[in-house]
């Protein structure tokens, strides 16, 4: 698609569309607008260079705007080439923010964009999949000296940061936003669960009730998808390599089995492992004709589209983000090129869920700037996590009890007794 000329009507329309999208987020973000603005506007972010590297759509843009409003110098990049929204990019540029990403890129243009973000020498990074942190380590190692902290969004990125720490390659503090309860309990489970089902159904116009749906991976994301699919009437099968989680899936009423035993009956397969090649050659061999494959995990290769492309007799674009690989007479339909289906093929997470997630990220960045933290991976302090949930409940007019002294266990009393005997 040709770039609309600067200040041409299409360009202005694009900017306005982006502004409208961001306004819609503003309207449904009570925690970011209340608690988070109040905290970050204390002056501590003035002039601080923060790179925001998350799927570049309206919610991310709103977080970037809040940090910029607090005086930070914000550099914005997308965390996946397939999820950057052109109108949002233009709207952010219009308000004077540095945006290094363009929509409709590919892996190589995206990697260049990340390096461009690195070259702005961010002091702090709000990262997704540790994509920027990892690349700075690989391609701009000297910049590690100037990085003062990273706050990470996802399960995949958290695993990468722990791996860097274990290898002695993490010279700055990193917060795993993902490990905050206000993130993974809501974003991963409800947010990804709801919107993954939405995107699959929107792209395919298929029905859930009575369908056989396989979910690969039973972490928070897989659990959310499985739960929503089941409640909407699907027969849900789950594969999970962690025995405790697999048992949990069984107790949740899911049919649990090995991937090849599970996917061979499925009409829709959704991957949620956060790893790679969850649907690889072994699984492809047993897939049904007309099966739909969608990915809800961080990696574009969680459904091994590279292998599919290698072994397919024909590859057809069916429009609306559906690619059909014909393998030995069977049509295998992959949604959104194997990228995160709810973002690449939908509008991403619900606004209110990202209000919580980005509150974790915003307050996390503020915490990194203000607390004296040692290098290594850290979890957001519980009182900050709690304050986010409290602010959200308050915005909905929901009040809570406080524990009364007489409701507490009397352990102080009997501990005293144990010490005196």
């Amino acid at each position, binding site marked *: 698609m040709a770039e609309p000329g600067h200040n041409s009507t299409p360009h202005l329309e694009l900017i306005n569309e982006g502004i*409208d*999208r961001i*306004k*819609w987020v503003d*309207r*449904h973000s009570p925690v970011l607008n209340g608690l988070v603005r109040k905290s970050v506007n204390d002056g501590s972010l003035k002039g601080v260079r923060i790179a925001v590297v998350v799927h570049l759509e309206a919610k991310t843009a709103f977080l970037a705007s809040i940090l910029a409003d607090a005086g930070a110098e914000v550099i914005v990049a997308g965390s996946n080439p397939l999820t950057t929204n052109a109108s949002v990019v233009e709207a952010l540029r219009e308000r004077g923010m540095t945006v290094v990403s363009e929509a409709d890129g590919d892996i190589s243009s995206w990697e260049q964009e990340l390096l461009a973000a690195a070259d702005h020498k961010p002091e702090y990074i709000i990262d997704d999949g540790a994509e920027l942190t990892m690349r700075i380590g690989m391609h701009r190692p000297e910049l590690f000296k100037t990085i003062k902290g990273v706050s990470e969004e996802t399960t995949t990125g958290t695993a990468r940061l722990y791996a860097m720490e274990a290898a002695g390659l993490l010279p700055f503090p990193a917060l795993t936003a993902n490990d905050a309860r206000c993130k993974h309990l809501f974003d991963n489970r*409800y*947010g990804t669960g*709801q*919107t993954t*089902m*939405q995107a699959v*159904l*929107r792209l*395919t*116009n*298929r*029905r*859930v*009730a009575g369908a056989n749906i396989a979910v690969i991976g039973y972490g928070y994301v897989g659990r959310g998808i499985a739960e*929503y699919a089941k*409640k*909407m*009437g699907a027969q849900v099968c789950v594969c999970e390599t962690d025995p405790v989680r697999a048992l949990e899936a069984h107790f949740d009423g899911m049919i649990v089995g090995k991937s090849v035993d599970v996917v061979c009956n499925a009409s829709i397969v959704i991957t949620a492992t956060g790893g790679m090649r969850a649907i690889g050659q072994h699984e492809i061999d047993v897939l049904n004709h*007309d099966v739909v494959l969608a990915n809800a995990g961080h990696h574009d290769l969680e459904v091994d589209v590279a292998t599919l492309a290698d072994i397919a007799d024909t590859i057809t*674009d*069916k*429009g*609306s983000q*559906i690619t059909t690989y014909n393998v030995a007479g069977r*049509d295998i339909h992959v949604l959104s090129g194997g990228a995160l289906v709810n973002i690449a093929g*939908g*509008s*991403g997470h*619900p*606004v*209110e*869920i990202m209000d919580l997630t980005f509150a974790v990220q915003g307050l996390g960045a503020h915490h990194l700037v203000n607390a004296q933290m040692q290098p290594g991976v850290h979890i957001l302090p519980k009182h900050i996590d709690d304050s986010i949930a409290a602010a959200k409940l308050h915005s*909905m007019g929901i009040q809570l009890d406080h524990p009364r002294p007489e409701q507490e266990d009397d352990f102080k009393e009997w501990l005293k007794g144990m010490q005196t005997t």
Partner: protein
Amino acid sequence: MTSHPLHSARDNTMADAGQKRIDWARPLMPVLADAAKTLSASGILNGRHIGICLPIDAKTANLALVLADAGAKVSCRAPGHYTNMEIAHALRRKGISVYTATDEISDNTNTHIQEFKNDIESARALLTSTPDILLDYDAEVICLARADFPDVFARLKGATESTKTGIDKLHDLSKAKALDIPLVNLDDTRLNRIFNNTIGTGQSVVMAMLDLTNLQIAGRSVLVIGYGSVGKGIASHAAALGALVTVAEIDPVKAMQAQYDGYLAKSITDAAPAAEVVFTATGSKGTLTPDHLTEMPDGVIICSAGCGRPEMPMEILQQAANKESVRAHITNYQFSNGKNLLLIADGHNVNTAAGEGSPIEIADKLMALQLASMEFLLSDGSKQ
């Protein structure tokens, strides 16, 4: 306004996209394919002219194409807001006439009245082409034929009607002894009630609202008005996704059923103050009144899942102090007291006007029912 061949490159690009959607749906419609094979072999459709008045989407397109393959002449007409223009262009390219008003509607600033006039014109165009059978929706075209096209009406071999709204109108005509053609009531079939309404519409209405708003439903207060087969499906899908569901229903037995199904049954007036999202699913005119709107909280989201605008208090909305499009298919009406109301899909039925309609596998059975009805009308059910 008549059906026309594609005249621009843009139309052809749109037709390509529409064709892909039609091709995507086809293998998921095995029941229709089987029924078509039988009907085609019988030769009963040869030379018959079928007027399809259903929302124009990929499923309807597959019905139109199998009818054409079976030897029928096929013309399509749907109200502008229920027409997917990509699909319409793809059908036109296959030689099927598609009468629609959408071509004339350049933006959503058209008033209801203008749009209505154009939709009437597209219906007139269809009737002028003298169909033998009408597959109607909301009984719009049958009623128009009865009123303004007596000759066309008299030579109809029959018609099918798919919606409750349409059946209600036709019952009135029938009582007045003004419906002297055979009419197959598809609304009352179990396939329609159980599968299309409860499962198909339930799923697609809730999903369309979420797609359009990008909001979360877990923990939201949802008011479903009407607990017929559509309302039941919306309530169950919303609740499945974690919503707190209240149901308003005037039929006491259905209201009690809602309460026993685990929802709160209340009057609209009592439920309105806590409603964050409202779905109307009555299929009846005047479901929401200006008084109900007064009771609703600031920022309430309103969607029709029934017959669309007639369910909505459109007059009072038109009097809003400020009307602004805030997002695709979402209009914010602000009243002089500062209160905002978000109307989805301009008050039209949300899953059809702003989504892709019922899921393909479910539409498959409904389209097969249309074929079975035609066979019935053209053999033993036909007028002498």
